[in-house]
């Protein structure tokens, strides 16, 4: 049996009062773009954070290419939500991207010209080379998101986790992210994306993971992204869902 880029077994995470994720188990295939979907409070970001060891888990196992996360840090890249940091921090775009190299530098080495080069390349890939020296608070929301993506690229990982990279970005950035995702896929990398906009799911992702506190369904988009499963995930909350579901059923 091949080892999955990410395998999660019976993962349970609880905040103080109530469990947010209950016994979630899945494995994701290599070299695919995977969308993580679910209503607010379904535990999407929590899943990412628990996998990355940022919050404690009550129960369960996470392995990355068959080994615990702690041993595999260098091949995992992470793009947190844009609001999670203070953009007034005194630093520029290039510097933020260089932070992606810190994991490879070890304890005492300082980033040097090689890191600068890599960071510059990554900025170029997301179309932000001209903004390298710009203070980060002077960038637009979309540009900030692209800087974060460039930083993840600089991590040069095999497996990427992205927490709502499409949230509140402009059309240019959205296109840039999509083409970046496809580049990554072509290089055989695996990307897990927390996503909100159901109308673009079929266009963007090969696989989906439907989450609602528990795992509702997981698998290739065309089999899994069905009105039936969406109903189970979102309940009767969104009438519009019918459209996506119906369309899916129609094409299968």
């Amino acid at each position, binding site marked *: 049996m*091949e080892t*999955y880029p990410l395998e999660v077994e*019976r993962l*349970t995470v*609880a905040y*103080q009062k*109530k*469990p947010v994720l*209950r*016994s979630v*188990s*899945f*494995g*994701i*295939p290599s070299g*695919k773009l*995977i969308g993580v979907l679910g209503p607010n409070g379904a535990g999407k970001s929590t899943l990412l954070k628990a996998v990355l060891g940022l919050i404690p888990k*009550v*129960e369960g196992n996470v392995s990355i290419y068959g080994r615990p996360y702690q041993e595999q840090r260098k091949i995992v890249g992470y793009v947190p939500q844009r609001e999670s940091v203070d953009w*007034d921090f005194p630093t520029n775009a290039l510097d933020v991207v260089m932070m992606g190299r810190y994991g490879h530098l070890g304890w005492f080495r300082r980033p040097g010209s090689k890191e600068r080069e890599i960071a510059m390349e990554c900025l170029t890939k997301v179309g932000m080379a001209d903004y390298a020296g710009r203070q980060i*608070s002077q960038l637009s929301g979309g540009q900030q998101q692209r800087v974060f993506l460039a930083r993840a690229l600089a991590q040069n990982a095999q497996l990427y986790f992205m927490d709502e990279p499409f949230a509140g970005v402009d059309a240019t950035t959205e296109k840039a992210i999509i083409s970046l995702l496809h580049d990554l896929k072509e290089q055989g990398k695996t990307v897990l994306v927390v996503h909100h906009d159901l109308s673009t799911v079929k266009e963007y992702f090969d*696989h989906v993971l439907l989450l609602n506190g*528990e*795992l509702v369904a*997981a*698998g*290739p988009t065309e*089999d*899994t992204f069905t009105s039936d499963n969406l109903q189970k995930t979102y309940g009767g909350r969104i009438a519009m869902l019918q459209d996506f579901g119906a369309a899916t059923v129609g094409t299968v």
Partner: protein
Amino acid sequence: MQWILMGSLLLGLGSGVIGSFTFLRKQSLLGDALAHAALPGICIAFMLSGVKSVGLFMIGAIISGALATFGIHAITRYSRIKQDAALGIVLSVFFGAGVVMMTKIQHSGNGNQSGLDKYMFGQAASMVMTDVYLMGIVSLILVIVCALLFKEFKLISFDPGFARGMGMKVALLEQLMLLMTVVAVVVGIQAVGVVLVAALLITPAVAARYWTDSLGIMVIMAGVFGALSGVTGTLISGTVSNLPTGPVTVLAATLLFLVSVTFAPNRGLLAKWIRRLRTRNELRGKMEMVVIHQSTQGVERGAEQ
């Protein structure tokens, strides 16, 4: 002694009540900043008048407190400096300036100044009768105003936007609440000192929050806790030598807080701990079933193709 006891009781009551609102408005440390900021106001009042009069000091403190709040507001509004640093800047700079003035007064050899340094650590026992009366009356007024404007204060603490929508004079009420906080701080400084007066506002209110989810009960409990701390502090420091009132009062409040944190129903540590054990056991039980259920469903379909 009886009068001083009565004074501390009313002071604790008043600060506890006001503190409940400042705590809910997430402005707990504002009291600390206001206490420090009061110093230059008090010194200027003394320099101008040349007499030690609590009434005049209060006016000075209110003016410099208002300036300090304005400063904090301006810094967070017009620069990228955040609330915490703005508080720290105003607190230390005002206090620094106050210390400069105080030493200036002391060095100028004015005989009346002896009372000023008492403001640092507070000593209820050294208060004169008129101070005690003033402290008690002012505290009482604070409590009465809070009782009269209870529903207004409640709404602007919870949802100022909605209050404005209802046509309430939110800005005016906020100013009033701020003014009352300054007054509470200034009368408190006498009894417990500049550094510790913040505790009179914060600690009883937080302790009360652990026991109840109703604002009315919380405010009453905070007042009772405050009064209890004030009386305990005054009694103990009055009977044991070399024991300043302020720290004892604060520690009494802290003790009440610790009891609340541990034993309060629902929110207390003990209750939480029991609940956590329970949910963990429940989760375990459920989990076994879920896993069996899911493995038959073939969760890893994605990888198999």
